[in-house]
């Protein structure tokens, strides 16, 4: 194998999902060119921005061979907190910073329980998911929070606001996509997720790495929540419902292995875009909307099955090399 094809091989999964996405766009261009006429595309981008930010965080957590299913609840809490802070008259940059810190604190709680006590992350985050959610319901009773005028699109008007939301998500994505390759900390995440014991033998502290991935996940959830909340004049305390599944699905479709250690934020990006486009695409193709979930489910199944298949293929290839 030459160096170049080897490189391409490494991006195989991201490329095949991107290919599927490209196929969908082409299909739309042929069957329903109206899709590109209005601002449909822009709407998809803007509504995907918060999901992308959360998906980047989830990529970190899953790479470290963990999972966080409490992000939906964190997302709702952060949105409500942001609304209150803005209503109290704090300047928007401070509101943003405090929301991110709030998310980080909730992530730290998860991280401390998982890394400090060695509890399984799915159970810990299930518990925090329920407690965060119930705490919020007890406090808000489902009532919305009215934000001040400068909360809606950061007070910049819709066009500039939309641009800021998409740009913000893009910057976060680019920073993490690069950081996972170019930072020692990113390397440590991959090492811990692949083989925590080997990483420990190499002088990395797996507990610390896991703790900080959860903190980062929380902080990014806070940011995502802010990017989602400013799209409406008031904040719905149920805005995060089901977000965790949406995000995990996108990340898995994008080729981040649930078994840890393999995948990239680029894959997560393609996964987010693909899943977000299914719904609008169906509407333009005049397929009943009920099919959206079924198709998304099928895509997830295909993605996971192809992972299993590839893994088996690689094992065989590996065995062949060893024998030689």
């Amino acid at each position: 194998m030459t160096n170049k094809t080897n490189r391409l091989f490494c991006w195989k999964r991201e490329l095949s999902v991107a290919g599927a996405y490209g196929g969908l766009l082409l299909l739309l261009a042929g069957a329903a060119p109206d899709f590109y006429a209005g601002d449909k595309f822009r709407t998809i981008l803007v509504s995907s921005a918060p999901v992308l930010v959360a998906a980047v965080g989830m990529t970190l957590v899953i790479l470290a061979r963990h999972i966080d299913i409490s992000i939906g609840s964190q997302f709702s809490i952060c949105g409500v907190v942001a609304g209150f802070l803005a209503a109290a008259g704090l300047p928007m940059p401070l509101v943003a910073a405090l929301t991110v810190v709030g998310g980080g604190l909730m992530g730290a709680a998860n991280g401390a329980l998982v890394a400090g006590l060695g509890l399984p992350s799915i159970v810990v985050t299930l518990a925090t998911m329920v407690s965060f959610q119930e705490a919020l319901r007890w406090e808000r009773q489902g009532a919305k929070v009215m934000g001040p005028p400068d909360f809606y699109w950061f007070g910049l008007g819709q066009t500039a606001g939309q641009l800021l939301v998409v740009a913000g998500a893009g910057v976060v994505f680019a920073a993490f996509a690069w950081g996972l390759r170019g930072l020692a900390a990113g390397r440590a995440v991959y090492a811990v997720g692949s083989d925590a014991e080997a990483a420990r033998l190499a002088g990395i502290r797996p507990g610390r790495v896991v703790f900080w991935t959860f903190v980062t996940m929380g902080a990014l959830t806070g940011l995502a929540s802010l990017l989602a909340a400013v799209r409406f004049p008031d904040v719905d305390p149920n805005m995060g419902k089901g977000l965790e599944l949406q995000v995990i699905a996108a990340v898995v479709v994008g080729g981040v292995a649930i078994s840890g250690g393999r995948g990239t934020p680029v894959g997560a990006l393609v996964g987010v875009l693909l899943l977000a486009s299914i719904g609008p695409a169906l509407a333009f193709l005049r397929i009943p909307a009920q099919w959206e979930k079924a198709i998304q489910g099928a895509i997830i199944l295909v993605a996971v099955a192809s992972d299993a298949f590839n893994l088996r293929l690689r094992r065989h290839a590996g065995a062949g090399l060893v024998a030689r």
Partner: protein
Amino acid sequence: MGTLLRLTEISKAFDGVQALRGVSFELRAGEVHALVGENGAGKSTLIKIVTGAHRADAGTVEIGGRAVVENSPLVSRSLGVAAIYQQPALFPDLTVAENVALGFEPRGAWRRVRWGERRARARGLLERIGARIDEDLPVSALTMPEQQLVEIARALGADARALIMDEPTASLPERDADNLFRIIRELRGQGVGIIYISHRLDELASLADRVTVLRDGSAVATRAMKEVDRAELIRLMVGREISTVFPKRSVKVGETVLELRGVGCRASGVRGVNLSVRAGEIVGLAGLVGAGRTELARVLFGLTPADSGEIVLGGRAVAIRTPSQAVALGIAYVPEDRRRHGVILDMAVAANASLAVLRRLSRLGFLDLEGERTLAEEYVGKFSIKAASIESPAGTLSGGNQQKVALARWLATKPRVIILDEPTQGIDVGAKSEIHRLMGDLAAEGMAILMISSELPEVLGMSDRIAVMHQGALAGILERAEATQETILALALGHRGAA
């Protein structure tokens, strides 16, 4: 006496490494047949072929006079073979009666469990071996010797006529061992045949009727136990010619780098080890599996920190409580299980090589990717690592090349002391001698090397001094000139000054 079990010309290879070569073995009814040999001589493989866990590449297996073509754990068990391992393989949360009954439930309608019958059966079997254990207790509430008795009862319940016991006394106090011997003799009287694996040659002398010695995958002798003494057995176990030439270089040995003074760790069973390693010196650490060699390495690397004694590094007493402290102090540890923890199979060769020096290779957390590439290319060249590119996942490399990547990772830390745990296990001959050559180079550069190896020729060929461990403690230290396979094995078996 009838023959319960007959193996004829059994051969088996794993990944090109020959584990058994044409071994023939026979077990008669009413005999205790001992199976002895060094680590890696092929005892476990032979047992696994009898129980059907592995399938032989060549040769035939006959159980109870019937040729078994497709052996499997289910088939061998139905033909009356049962195995009892060092660590009891019971279900800790089920009761004694449930454990004994497992797999032998009545075949009636609905497969309904008859609790009364189940209990009575367990009680009967336990009585047959004279064990007084409440059959309603969960197994986790029993002591280790009691669990072993439950395993024997379970084997008898399966109507086992050929019983395999793998080091059953390894973790038993003497009194319980005596009880076990009494049961074994009783079973022998009832016509059960027993394959008995043990490193305790003394107990074999009083217990076994015949003994078969395995060496390097071949059965070198089967004798009546009365006809051989201990010295003869040891000679049979090691009596091989050292054919490989080891590239041992004479290196000027420098100052003491690492010194252990009475180092112990209760949690891992290491006791009072006094040992020193000097610059440019290779100290071989020999001993049987479970003698505490890897445990000692893990103590030195801070994985299970020492709780007694003193570790002196470069003349200074140090506390090593975590691997990252050990790395910072200049200690490197290349672990035994290369495929699991030596290299990370999913990660690229370059990323594997730099994993232990990420801190040195980065500034303010930013990785110097160019520096990483230089580092990886340097070691790929120096060690002639065969990989498609430094970006290929380590899992695509051969075992020998993976081991070189693991070595590269640790040499990149520029250690003062390197601990190599079974550095050449399971890799082919060519790669093996390359690793040996590299070890010589490292010693010549003044590194202190502690090499754990179960291969006596390797220990003898590469070491300046040989420390032998037995049951967690140091049994003795031999100079290169005075060490022979016999003296090492005698120390490893716990016979001071024998042979």
